[in-house]
């Protein structure tokens, strides 16, 4: 009899441990974060958390540093995402033909994605080092003036975008390559009959058919670019002059360096809303695009 009961409820017994784990490790912390965002507390055992209502949120909205971090996050995210998608599609198309050494290229492509981000951040720190780094050696060898890269408040975010592009363009390229492989050859044959050129075939056939794939890749990437932490913290820790302090970094600094747990939690709630909002926007966009084909 117990066997039968076990068998009948098998699906619940199977999912229960995983769901319980996720709820305890995820849902509880989220609720706790929301709760603590209405309190003032510095993790002291003597002074208990003090209820301050919406004060944490209001002080954030008046905090110039918060708005700066929001702008940096959006700047970093939008520019990196656009470059990665355009470059990723271009590289996928470039690699879609058959040639010798294709597997080698695909292998090299995989490496930036899986290599430990902190270690890679340190490598880029050396590449960007103004006096001995490879970046300035390259500029000088082609007759350009050296730059300050990560040491300059203006150039720091673009420099970090380069690192992110190096790390993650391959992911977009690999996804788009998988998408390219599923496109049938008939439309191209028809276009050949019509005498269409390469560019025309790309814009009229390849791109429209790839649109859903590209949107999925962009969505996955968007979620992760917004949350970029490792390469920023390993190289600049938000500096110079807070120039590279994104919301993720500011939240970390508020929580674990200043121990302003209430304010940090309020920031994380807002940050979470931003990530959710932008993700839903892309989901909606994707639905619309897919709707066009129904």
């Amino acid at each position, binding site marked *: 009899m117990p*066997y039968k009961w076990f068998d009948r409820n*098998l*699906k*619940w017994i199977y*999912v229960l*441990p*995983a*769901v319980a*784990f*996720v709820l305890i*490790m*995820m849902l*509880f*912390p*989220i609720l706790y*974060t929301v709760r603590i965002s209405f309190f003032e507390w510095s993790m002291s055992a003597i002074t208990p958390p003090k209820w301050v209502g919406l004060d944490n949120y209001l002080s954030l909205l008046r905090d110039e540093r918060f708005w700066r971090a929001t702008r940096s996050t959006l700047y970093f995210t939008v520019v990196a995402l656009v470059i990665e998608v355009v470059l990723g599609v271009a590289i996928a198309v*470039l*690699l879609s033909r058959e040639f010798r050494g294709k597997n080698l*290229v*695909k*292998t*090299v492509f*995989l490496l930036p*994605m*899986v*290599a*430990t*981000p*902190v*270690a*890679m951040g*340190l*490598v880029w720190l*050396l*590449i960007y080092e103004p006096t*001995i780094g*490879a970046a300035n*050696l390259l500029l000088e060898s082609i007759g350009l003036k050296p730059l300050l890269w990560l040491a300059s408040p203006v150039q720091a975010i673009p420099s970090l975008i380069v690192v992110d592009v*190096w790390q993650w363009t391959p992911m977009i390229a*690999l*996804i788009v390559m*998988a998408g390219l492989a599923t496109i049938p050859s008939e439309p191209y044959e028809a276009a050949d009959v019509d005498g269409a050129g390469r560019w025309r075939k790309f814009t009229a056939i390849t791109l429209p058919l790839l649109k859903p*794939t590209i949107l999925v*890749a962009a969505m*996955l990437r968007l*979620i992760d670019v*917004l*949350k970029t*932490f*490792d390469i920023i*913290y*390993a190289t600049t820790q938000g500096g110079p002059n807070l120039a590279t302090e994104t919301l993720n970094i500011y939240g*970390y600094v508020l*929580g*674990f360096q200043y121990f302003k747990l209430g304010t940090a939690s309020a920031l*994380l709630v807002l940050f*979470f809303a931003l*990530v*959710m909002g932008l993700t839903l926007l892309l989901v909606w966009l*994707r639905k619309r695009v897919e709707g066009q084909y129904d």
Partner: protein
Amino acid sequence: MTRRKRTARLILGLLTFLVLLAFAFPFVWMLLASFKTQSQIMSTDQLLSFKPTLANYTSVFGEHDFLGYMINSLIVGVGSTAFALLLGLPAAYAIARYHLHRLGLVILVARIIPGITFLIPWFILFSQVKLVDTYTALILSHMLVGLPFIIWIMISFFEALPKEIEEAGLIDGCNRHQVFLRVILPISGPGMITASLLSFIFSWNNFMFSIILSGEKTKPLPVAVFNFMSYAEINWGALMAAACIITLPVLIIALLAQRYVVNGLAAGAVKG
């Protein structure tokens, strides 16, 4: 072949080579610098031809407890992957077989939420029960990264298995639980390899959770190498040697199991 076509091919080949070079360059630079002395790194006339030294590697293992950090990373990586498989495999099977996709969605939300949102409550909680700087805290936190990936990958794998296999098992007198253990799991090797490799790589690379939840006893590699930097003058050679040591195991995994890793990374996208 016409002349125009030949030129086009040449340009495409050149472009491919440039792309390859750009993506491989940081690795080459890291490897070269790890065999240079500080003064060789400082002088820009010894870029490619220099007398290699192993001093950086001996200093990393000699002056720092790098082997200990490596063991920490290994324990947390293997531990979190094993427990995530234990929870994830049955869950993925049930979701795939009984179409509980809404539950699958709940678990995927873990990927969307910024990890730092969990970190403050975890830190408070783990401090109160004295779990900061223990493998338990690190394994639990890393599981939250690995578990969604394992479930995600295994759902598509289980869905692709033909139903007849299970039915044959049921006719042979197995109950459903036995079918899962004795029929399904033994043929799920490829999916499990993909899922475990990715889960291990994510744990090995994890920095944000580890920097808060680890301490002197449990410090894993990414945190250890980051702490190298806090010294007054950066010893670039040793830093690059450390970076090589951290990255090498992941790169070897990726090279040996390239097909699996690509499948895993693309799995989320293809299914959408």
